[in-house]
């Protein structure tokens, strides 16, 4: 599987492999040597094929900022696990179930409420442990299945979210 990079909103699929002198870029069956060498004083030199230019590079998580010829480009690597996840509208995740049996301490939402990802929906207690059940995404509440003081089993539905709209 090739690496996927995003540059200026455009996706690029390519393979950057290691070789003895640095890296080699596999682009349409062509193998181009690539190297980024530091001169030890904070300056870098970027070599692509036979071209070698002064450059500055900084890495911030999955984003690499490269400054060449007075222009800065930001290259973002996309994790293939996230990229190939199917983002269909309705999913099992829309029904939020109890992670363990217990008692409802408080219910903080009603059907129709808009909630943001991470917002607490219900607080439960089990084995002396209070657990806040939080919204996995921005959503509208469709159904609330429990009320304060009620007990429930493991995997019992607590709250159902309205399916996420496409786009």
């Amino acid at each position, binding site marked *: 599987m090739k690496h996927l990079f995003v540059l200026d909103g455009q996706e690029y699929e390519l393979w950057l492999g290691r070789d003895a002198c640095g890296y080699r870029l596999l682009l349409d069956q062509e193998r181009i040597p690539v190297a980024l060498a530091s001169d030890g004083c904070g300056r870098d030199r970027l070599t692509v094929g036979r071209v070698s230019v002064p450059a500055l590079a900084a890495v911030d*998580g*999955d984003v690499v900022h490269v400054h060449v010829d007075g222009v800065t480009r930001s290259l973002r690597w996309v*994790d293939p696990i996230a990229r190939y996840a199917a983002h269909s509208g309705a999913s099992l995740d829309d029904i939020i179930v109890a*992670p363990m049996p217990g008692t409802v301490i408080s219910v903080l939402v009603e059907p129709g409420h808009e909630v943001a990802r991470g917002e607490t929906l219900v607080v439960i*207690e089990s*084995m*002396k*442990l*209070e657990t*806040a059940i939080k919204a996995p995404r921005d959503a509208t509440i469709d159904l609330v299945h429990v009320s304060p003081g009620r007990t429930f089993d493991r995997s019992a539905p607590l709250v159902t979210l309205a399916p996420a709209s496409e786009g």
Partner: protein
Amino acid sequence: MRIESRIDTSSEEFRANMAHNRGLAAELRTRQNKARFERPARDIDRLTRQNKLFVRDRLNLLLDPDTPFLELSTLAANMEYDGEVPGAGNVIGIGIIAGREVMIHADDASVKGGAWYPLTIKKMVRALDIAIENRLPVVHLCDSAGGFLPLQADLFADKYYAGRLFRNQAILSKRRIPQVAIVLGHCTAGGAYIPALSEYNVIVRGTGAIFLGGPPLVKAATGEEVTVDELGGADVHTRISGTADYPADTEQQAIAIARDIVAQFRRPDKLRIERLPPAPPYYDPEELYGIVPRDIKVQFDMREVIARIVDGSRFHEYQPAYGTTLVCGYAHIWGYQVGILANNGVLFNDSSLKAAHFMQLCNQHCVPMIFLQNITGYMVGRDYEHRGITKDGAKMIMAVAGSEVPKITVMVNGSFGAGNYGMAGRAFDSRFLFAWPQHQISVMGAEQAANVLADIKIRQLQRHGQTLTPEQVAAIREPILEEYRRQSSAYYSTSEIWDDGILDPVDTRNALGLALSAALNAEIDRPHYGVFRM
């Protein structure tokens, strides 16, 4: 894949947790500082009069400058002996001398003349156990008045009392792990065996002495009158008896000689495990303060903790959809690959099975394991018993006990019931076990236990015809609850040396890196287990 944090760092909840946990960390630093440096003036004056250095100054001379020192059990004995024996009267830790990773044990003569209390012995035995398990050479800085006689019954005769020190020294030697003792003060009676059982020892002329009985005891036993130097000083032992190897004129010279001895040690090859170039976590470790809730009863997602400890916040989660109350997966810490097992709620049948399976994977492929505890126990109730929660819990315990890869445990929050055992509690030979300041540990939560104990007492009184007012019930319940809370606190736990020290949460990554580095000095056996009840 990088963990995606779901924490809202601008929320009121986060800020309140931040303030609370920063406060706990500040309290920890104050307590540690006190235990390390604060001594009554008369004790420091006495050392100066005797021409001796304070233990911390000795350590500064001994260690390579600008290298990390993983000090262990700094707050041992903080709740014992009326708080008068800071650090249990000695310093232990892993440091770098002449580029070698070594275990250091140093008597602290500014505390009761370096007398060994029961917890002093326990701390020294633990230091030597760590040295044996991780094949670490040991440097002893000896300066002790000997066993604290009023408490001799609690430190002399039993299996893990003082005799264990010398047994451990002999085992280290047998396993070709060298030791150096620097005799900086008196080594009397049992203390004399520390340098005698070390491969190398250095003794300071004038202040260092080794003898089975000091001059007063000799006078009482035989009538012989003899000075300290004539009985067991540097020249006696390096010229006549051969008990010591190198005489030194000053403490500084003795430490320099010891450093030179350590420089002769073979630098062992570390065990090769999967490694990557280290990278800092993507999420700021300071955010840990805002993640751990103020109330120990409130749950939080342990992935948020993992994200602030591991390289690049990257985590390959194993079985993400199964047994979700235990998070398992692979990550790197300072470049070392580790398997992480972290509680995200109560342990069920499926989470126990997942744990046992994941531990076998780690053992099969030589991946050290990190346990992050926040556990209220295994799930109780008819359904769960019928499904065999006890036998599945037993599988997990069988797997953890039979594991051969290094285990390191961090008591992040609660540690209650058998969950403590399944998650590599103290009894399961973790190479290192650290705690966070808010950590609580006990057979069950304080309130449950206090209720049980108070109910028994109230029923006894009722059987004798007494009826109790709510005030009387409270009067029975409160002291029980108070004592239970005291005994389940992190400071009590560390006082009793149930752990290797309390960490400021932001230091966890560094402590784990140092502990992993130390653990890789020892070979890993092939995994083998007892019988898993199916």
